[in-house]
């Protein structure tokens, strides 16, 4: 049975008076003190033990309605789709070569086990399980896996950059695939071999013509091959989107409900208890909360921070997991910017308390972080976060901040902070308030996302000195460090334009070009320490994944990867409904 959690403090928080108190504290920005207490909700307390039904037959009649937190882009073709909320649906329809375990570790699914690695980590040989079948009865073959790896590159879909390191592939036999990379790529195993496998024959309207039009090497050829992709595969998923997963599409309404039904002939293990699951989005958080309170849905994802205590009521169960999300405050490090000096950046970071901010604004759904590698990602790597926190992370010290600014900042130091609306705007306001308290100040500009992207990638100090954004990576530090700190990403995914020490960018690049994790650890360690010392960006906080369900929903677990929530039929949870 699910393990109930009884948390008296949270029950206390459920009273309106205390909730109002928290809200007011959030509005006025707290008292600025950091007494070191930790009033944060621990995600571990909202993870539950496995539960199995007493009556399996009854459980197999289960149906649930799942409310997603964002609207889907309605891309159900894994080759094309890069939308987490479409992925939540089609990940039930397609199996991956590997899939995440209950954390961010990988476990084989369509693969028989770990690949054989040859040629200095550039050749991966995968063996496919024998009995895997698509929903139309066709076997899953190495040809299908090969197509799933290289089609994003050939067709230049949004997923192309992920697989562009592939130089060639070879189908050794029906169940063996060889993938050769152009160079050793550190994140390959942990990031990309969890490829979602499609049926090549069903996805393409003309397989032969597609193969003939495709170049011999793995390179972009969209104009040649795209006309042979069957558009119904994505646009009309019912009966056309063929996967090897435990569910298949039963009905679909554009921007409306998408209903999946269990495949009773599913080849894998476990077979779902759920007979049917309907996905529907509600982007408005209060609407989602109302739906679960009114019992109009079985599960909602994405609980707003301020309603977390409110949902601590009979008939509703809350779930939480850490996530690989990373929120940060970045500084414009170009020579002309007032924040080009590391002392100025440190002063800004010491002018406010991140711990206090998170406690007053997001204590239920977030936690402060020390490095650009979130704690859940660090579980795979083991960097000494606590030690670095004590040694390098800028502690709240307004007196020191003031003296640093007096010494290193221009007299009229009044930086512009750009950010999107929401909690990051709250943080920007907090920074501005604290800077004001020590005799300086800041201008906060809340921008829509498009404008923000245009602005923060310009590097123009007239437009911004600081920006607040977030990034969701995965189990590999490369996704954070290369995209958010390497010079190749300047003007694309990062706008701090930090030059770094001689080895800073070299290490990041070297780490992605080696497959040895220990070697990569050694390369990343000085990079992470330099980030904390020089502060091109201050790690702010990570936001947790959360869900809520009626207590009739059993064996549901929040997963760190938002795109694979809900995990409906996995080794780590097989959802069923109790009458």
């Amino acid at each position, binding site marked *: 049975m699910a393990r109930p959690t009884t948390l008296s403090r949270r029950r206390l928080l459920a009273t309106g008076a205390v909730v109002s108190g928290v809200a007011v504290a959030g509005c006025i920005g707290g008292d600025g003190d950091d007494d070191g207490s930790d009033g944060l909700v621990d995600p571990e307390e909202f993870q539950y033990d496995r539960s199995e039904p007493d009556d399996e037959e009854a459980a197999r009649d289960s149906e649930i309605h799942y409310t997603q937190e964002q609207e889907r882009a*309605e891309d159900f073709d894994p080759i094309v789709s890069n939308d987490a909320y479409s992925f939540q649906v089609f990940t039930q329809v397609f199996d991956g070569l590997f899939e995440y375990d209950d954390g961010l570790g990988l476990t084989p699914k369509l693969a028989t086990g770990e690949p054989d690695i040859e040629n200095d980590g550039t050749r991966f040989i995968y063996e496919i399980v024998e009995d895997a079948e698509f929903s139309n009865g066709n076997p899953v073959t190495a040809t299908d896996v090969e197509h799933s790896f290289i089609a994003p590159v050939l067709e230049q879909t949004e997923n192309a950059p992920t697989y562009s390191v592939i130089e060639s592939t070879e189908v050794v036999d029906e169940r063996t695939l060889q993938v050769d990379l152009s160079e050793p790529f550190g994140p390959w195993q942990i990031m990309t071999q969890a490829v979602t496998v499609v049926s090549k024959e069903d996805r393409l309207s003309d397989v032969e013509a597609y193969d003939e039009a495709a170049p011999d090497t793995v390179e972009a050829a969209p104009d040649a091959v795209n006309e042979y992709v069957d558009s119904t595969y994505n646009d009309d998923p019912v009966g056309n989107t063929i996967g090897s997963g435990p569910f298949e599409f039963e009905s679909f309404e554009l*921007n409306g409900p998408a209903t999946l039904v269990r495949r009773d002939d599913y080849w894998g293990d476990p077979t779902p208890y759920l007979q049917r699951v309907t996905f529907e989005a509600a982007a408005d958080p209060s*609407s989602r909360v109302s739906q679960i309170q009114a019992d109009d849905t079985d599960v909602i994802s994405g609980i707003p921070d301020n309603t977390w205590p409110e949902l601590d009521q009979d008939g509703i169960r809350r779930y939480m997991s850490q996530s690989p999300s990373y929120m940060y405050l970045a500084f414009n490090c170009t020579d002309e910017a007032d924040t080009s000096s590391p002392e100025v950046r440190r002063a800004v970071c010491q002018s406010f308390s991140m711990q206090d901010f998170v406690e007053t604004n997001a204590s239920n759904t977030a936690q402060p972080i020390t490095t650009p590698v979130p704690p859940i990602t660090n579980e795979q790597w083991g960097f000494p976060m606590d030690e670095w926190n004590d040694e390098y992370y800028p502690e709240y010290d307004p007196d020191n901040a003031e003296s640093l600014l007096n010494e290193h900042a221009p007299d009229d130091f009044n930086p512009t902070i750009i950010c999107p609306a929401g909690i990051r705007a709250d943080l920007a306001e907090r920074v501005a308030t604290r800077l004001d308290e020590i005799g300086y100040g800041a201008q906060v500009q809340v921008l829509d996302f498009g404008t923000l*992207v*245009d602005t923060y990638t310009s590097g123009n100090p007239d437009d911004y000195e600081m920006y607040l954004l977030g990034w969701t990576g995965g189990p590999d530090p490369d996704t954070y460090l290369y995209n958010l700190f390497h010079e190749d990403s300047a003007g694309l995914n990062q706008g701090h334009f930090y030059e770094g020490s001689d080895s800073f960018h070299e290490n990041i690049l070297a780490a992605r070009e080696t497959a040895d994790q220990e070697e990569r650890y050694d390369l990343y360690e000085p990079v992470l320490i330099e980030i904390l010392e020089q502060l091109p960006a201050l790690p702010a906080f990570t936001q947790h994944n959360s869900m809520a369900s009626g207590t009739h929903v059993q064996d549901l677990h929040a997963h760190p990867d938002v795109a694979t929530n809900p995990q409906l039929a996995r080794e780590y949870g097989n959802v069923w409904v109790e009458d």
Partner: protein
Amino acid sequence: MRLLRYTLFRFAQAIPVLLGITVILFLFINMTPGDPIRIMTAGQEVSESHLAYLEARYGLDRPIHVRYWDYLSGFFTGDLGRSIHYNRPVSEVMMARIGPTLLLVLSAFLFAVVTAIPLGILAAKRRNQPSDHISRIVALFGVSTPSFWIGIMLIIIFAVQLGWFPSAGLVMPWDAPSDAGLSGYFWHMVDVLHHLFLPMIALGTLQMATIMRVERTQMIDSLQGEYVKLARAYGVSERTILRKHAFQVAQLPVITLVGLGLSTALGGAVLTETVFNINGMGRLLIDSIQQKDYQVVMSVATILAVIFVIGVIITDIAYAYVDPRVTYGEGE
């Protein structure tokens, strides 16, 4: 015949207005900062060449006047282009969204008119009596309370606390199962009304309150008119005076209000759709603006402009039909 000519004239006048709207919309949308391709690829490792490819794929690398011309010519042939965000034809995306918005707005208007006019008449007839005071309080509440707040309150009371109505979503009348039969269709329509009730009230309350206030004022004016006094002097019954003499004259401003209230209702629908999680045009427009999905924004905004212009024209025609003093343009 004169009415027909007037109608055609008004529609002809609307063409340059709509063209002007499309030009202004297109310029504004394209002048706003933000690149849809950068938004689409945000959070990914992308190369400049891949960004350039995506730009070319969605035609964003072409000059703005070429894109406008393509949009306009496509619009008249029914090809609204392809959504960048949804990667589907815009017409398909819009068709899925227009039904819920029309159902919501029209039902809210129906609710507003059906309740406001009798209440307005009642309040005027029983001026300064308790029923008049109650009507005025209701009207004051209606005009001074945002529709989304009413929606939230309705959800909390009637969906969460009492459980009488669903808290989200709409059921479309035309979505009844094909094999439902008469009884099945009846229960389907009950389900439609069950889902529609709360959002309809939330959106229609402002219109209802506005119309009721005007109706009451106009009816009071009418009932004090010389022609009403004369009718009373001739011994015409109060019911006939109310129905035949006062009512028709009092409706002229109400007709204007209903017609022009369409734009207010479409604006209010955005928030109502959000609160009740209805996948309508309003939410599509907001989401598309955030995604900089130019083709969808242009098409939705143009369709809304067409609906509004048609609403205004119908108002003008109705006005001309009801009030003999309004000419059909001969003197203009």
